[in-house]
């Protein structure tokens, strides 16, 4: 089906219609804002209780948030560099691997909604 065509949403299951709300571009800003608000609330929540972790570094307000944000970014950047080094065409290992071949049709139960 052509993704650019507007499809009749009423044929989708109820849960499908609900989930597809998250895929719309016009809603992505709302999702983004909600997440920023959640992160802010979680950061502020750090001031509401006595922090006593195993290590001193855990007592910094928002330590886990800062660590998570920067380490996640670092992970993606390193992975990008890694890809340039180890990426090969899909049929690199030829017929000795499954990467270039299709899954046998007789073991599938395909069908469109």
């Amino acid at each position, binding site marked *: 089906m*052509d*993704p650019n065509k507007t499809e009749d949403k009423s044929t*989708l*299951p109820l*849960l*499908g*219609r*609900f*989930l*597809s709300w*998250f*895929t719309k571009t016009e809603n992505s800003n709302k999702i*983004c804002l909600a*997440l*920023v608000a959640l*992160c802010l609330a*979680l*950061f502020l929540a*750090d001031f509401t*209780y006595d*922090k*006593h972790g*195993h*290590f001193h570094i*855990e007592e910094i307000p928002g*330590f*886990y*948030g*800062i*660590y*998570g*944000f920067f*380490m*996640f970014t670092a*992970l*993606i*950047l390193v*992975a*990008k560099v*890694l*890809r340039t080094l180890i*990426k*090969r*065409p*899909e049929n*690199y*290992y030829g*017929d*000795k*691997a*499954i*990467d270039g*071949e299709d*899954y046998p049709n007789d073991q*599938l*139960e*395909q*069908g*469109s*909604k």
Partner: protein
Amino acid sequence: MISILPTAFIFIASALILGFLPRGHIRSTILLATPVLAAWHIWNLPVGIFSQVEFVGQTLDMMRVDKLSRIFGLIFCLAAFLGNLYAWHVRDLIQQVAALLYAGAAIGAVFAGDLITLFFYWEATALASVFLIWARKTEGSYHTGMRYLIIQITSGVILLAGTALLYRDTGSITFERMTLGSLGTWLIFLSFGIKCAFPLLHNWLQDSYPAATITGTVILSAFTTKLAVYALARGFAGTELLIYIGAVMTLFPIFFAEIENDLRRVLAYSLNNQLGFMVVGIGVGTEMAINGTASHAFAHILYKALLFMSVGAVMLRTGTSKASELGGLCRTMPRTAMFCLIGAASISAFPFFSGFVTKSLIMDATANQHYPVIWAILVFASAGVLSHSGIKIPYFTFFGHDSGLRPKEAPIHMQMAMGLTALLCIIIGVYPDPLYALLPYEVVYQPYTMGHVIGQLQLLCFALLAFIFLMRSGIHPPEIRAVNLDVDWIYRRLVPTFYNIIHVATVKFFTYFDSVINDFIQLTIKGLYKLLGPETGVSRMRGVGSMVVWVAILLGISLISSYF
């Protein structure tokens, strides 16, 4: 001594009668009933050592029942049940028998009280499971299965060699806690390490799991590696080396998973990373850490199976598990999408999901023993888990860009298997006490503290924020059709290339050597020909007449000489 039926025999008996039953629902029912019966059997077992048999002068302990073996036995039964429910539609007898024997062998190994029994079941898991890969019936899966089998059998052979050396040193084959030192213990350690996918020994996992059938991968994901985790927990608890091995295991797969296109291979890398957490727990070795490892293995088998199930359902409907070809499937496969999200939340250890209440035991046990660097690596690896299993799997399959595919929802039995597994993931997360009660040691632990919940939510939500930031700025690497090199390149490319070079060189050398010898022989023959050939004086033909003349001359000479 009380003799009881070894639990593995229930599976073996079922596998034997399966072929005589009519195809269809009756066989599928037996596949479901067997693990239920086995779980009931394990549940009612008393603690102790049973079913001893004599074998070439040794006493084999077929059933050693304690809390550690019991929890692994139970989760293996549960995994077999859920996997077989998911595979209800499969009518291939080979896969059905393989699934039963594989689960039975893994359970047999868990209850093995000595290293010889362990060896038998260790090899049996390898032999049974390879059929789940070959059942795909393609050229690629045949070769992949061979590679898998060679590595798994090698692991068993090393185990046997280690056992023999250990027996020479200690005179005992009992499978109990060992200390690394002698060659025998190192070999056993290496053997466990291969099956546990230690760094550099790991690649059979990512190579073979995506090559199995849709249902086969779900079953494969549960047993082999967790059997190795059990074996390490039994044999090498408190071995400090394992802390560092485990930390590396949590770390390196997250980079590979990030750029991998085949989602089943992403899950295999993710499985490797989760094993890392368990191995760290074994290395720390305190009661809390071993509890953490056992409970994490339990929870992990469920959410990993759930993720493999959801990707498998997508594959059944679309024919592919490649992220570059998928996207936007939440519209027509919303239930599968929800189950996948629950699996993703569980593996990412969101509060109220199973990973949260089990992984934190390992994290806290590590922090308690003052390993700050290891602890920091584990926290980083937790963010990494969110990246590939928590975000990548559901986002690029069910959300993300619209692939235009509108497949049907998964078959009803698959939905039931996924639904049941998802329910267990949530129940464990919300109410962990029954799981804690099954653990090897008493649990004095409260996962739901304010600091713990807020800290974990911060880590995950800020990482999610980073993901959105990277996606919007176009920095996040796109999903593209490609394969990525890993250690298996050494035995799939380097060694064959090297072998080829030697082969070509050898052939060239002998061809040259051959031609030199040939030339020599030719020259010799030619020389002899010239010297003694028909052209030469030696072999010139002479007429009979000249011969008669010469005879007459000789006779004349002898006549004349007789007168003197």
